[in-house]
């Protein structure tokens, strides 16, 4: 297996991380204590639950279906809005921690308002313009490159110099269009992908398995889709790409990086065999000392390397 040389410093999209594996937005990110725990369990960085301009209770259940090799969810962006700010107090020594606030809104003003709440407290922002099952939010922005531009611009301004990542939806004809908008608007990185539009039906109950009807797919099933998106983005934008979608193993991390990712996010992976130890377990397999094994390489040497085939 290809392994990555241990280094003191991993930086991706302007954020200093502890390793290449970041907790994805909406996964165990409802409380500060949980984010703190995941950091302690070895995540390279953590992203909060997506926070919006008003509190939302989210969709009725079932909100999550765990399928074989995939997760399907329709949470509906539940979040306590500005009440979340005090959650961050539970993160020990937050100033030195790679904590990224995921934010969403319905228009540029929302993004700038929500970003301003967190501006001093976190190391960066991730804009959720890509949730496939929230009316008026998420993907309804991400499908429109002009709106992506405006929202990114507003968030960058409100971010007070902190890096802004834009998380993209794969549910579009051309994912590079929104990525280019984000890049032009000053984003420090794009993140790909949010969940893939999906639905399952209980044949016995004759109704959708999710309370919301439709939802978004994540986990191993979408890994090949995510790799493809990262690949296409690598050829389209110059800003770094953060890979997300179905990462479960150290080799998956390497694969994402070879497609063009500077780091990866892990969400559904916490339901794998390692559970919340996935970050630690992957790191143990992924990193090696320089010269340990002939397939040990520098991270920067493999980012996007498969494009030169």
């Amino acid at each position, binding site marked *: 297996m290809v392994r990555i040389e241990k280094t003191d410093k991993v930086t991706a999209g302007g954020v200093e991380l502890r390793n290449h594996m970041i907790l994805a937005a909406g*996964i165990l990110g*409802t409380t500060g204590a949980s984010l703190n725990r995941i950091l302690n369990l070895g995540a390279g960085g953590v992203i909060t639950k997506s926070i919006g301009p008003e509190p939302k209770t989210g969709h009725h259940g079932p909100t*999550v279906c765990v399928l074989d090799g995939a997760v399907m969810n329709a949470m509906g962006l539940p979040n*306590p809005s500005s009440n979340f700010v005090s959650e961050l107090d539970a993160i020990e020594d937050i100033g030195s921690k790679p904590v990224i606030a995921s934010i969403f809104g319905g228009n540029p003003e929302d993004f700038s308002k929500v970003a301003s709440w967190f501006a001093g407290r976190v190391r960066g922002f991730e804009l959720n313009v890509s949730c496939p099952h929230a009316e008026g939010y998420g993907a309804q922005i991400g499908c429109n490159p002009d709106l992506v531009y405006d929202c990114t611009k507003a968030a960058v301004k409100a971010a007070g110099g902190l890096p802004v990542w834009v998380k993209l939806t794969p549910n579009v004809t051309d994912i590079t269009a929104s990525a280019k908008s984000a890049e032009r608007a000053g984003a420090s990185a794009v993140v790909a992908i949010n969940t893939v539009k999906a639905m399952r039906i*209980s044949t016995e*109950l004759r109704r959708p398995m999710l309370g919301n009807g439709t939802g978004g797919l994540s986990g191993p099933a979408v890994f090949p889709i995510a790799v493809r998106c990262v690949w296409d983005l690598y050829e389209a934008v110059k800003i770094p790409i953060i890979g997300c979608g179905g990462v479960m193993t150290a080799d998956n991390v390497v694969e994402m990086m070879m497609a063009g990712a500077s780091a990866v996010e892990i969400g*559904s992976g916490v*339901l794998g065999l390692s*559970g919340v130890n996935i970050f630690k*377990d992957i790191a143990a397999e992924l990193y090696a000392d320089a010269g340990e094994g002939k397939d040990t390489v520098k991270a920067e040497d493999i980012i996007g390397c498969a494009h030169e085939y």
Partner: protein
Amino acid sequence: MNTERNEKNGRNNGSLKAIPSEIVRITRVIDETPSVKTFEFDKDFEFKAGQFCMVWVPGVDEIPMGLSAANAITVQKVGEATEALFKLNAGDKIGIKAPLGNGFSIGNGGRVLAIAGGVGAAPLRPLVRSGRCTTFLLGSRTASEILYGDELAQGTDLRIATDDGTKGHHGFVTDLMKEVDLLSYNSICVCGPEIMMRGVLRLLKEKSEDTNTDLVSRGQFSLVRYMKCGVGICGSCCLDPEGLRVCRDGPVFAGDIVEKSREFGTYSRDASGSRTMPGGH
């Protein structure tokens, strides 16, 4: 921490296994009390006392419920989903994801003390049914709210307290703890309103100090937090300050873990993740 034990059962190999919602048919609805019903269904789940399930009430919601038997849940009507459940009859279908969470760990044998308040008796009932419960302290608002009729009394040394004195001791279930020799139990399994569980914990602490014996960590508390996913991915049920997931790392936690929780008995979070009053059965 409980979680490590739960989750380190295999090497991370990239696989992710389904947790299906099994569609079951309700076979019997038992009116336990005016506000509580037991729903039996046509499938037995393998489980450990204290493990729970996510109950899909079609068209309404999916909510967590302790398994009160391999094929049953015991439900108190408190709001939308539980009201909808109450309208269902034998023949109707619901979805059950089970077993979830960790359950009580009582090793093999030893003396087991169960302490329940109200519908908190539900997840403790399987201990009695399997003959592993030595003593059961059951608190209830009033006589008519006592669950499971005579069933518990037949399987264990049952002692009752009611707030209004209509049955058993007139007072709180915690009062009953003074009647028994706490030191003689290997496990003390607790489930009920959080304020009551806080009382139990306090008594265990006092007794521990008095006797210089660690009774706190013999205590096992089944917690309730707002659960959206029930499977450990969403984060809605996490407990301060450790960030443990009640759905996956719990719902049962050892007394020493609970003791460290600054939110236990003080606050919890609602559907949006905002802080609110604590839950509990």
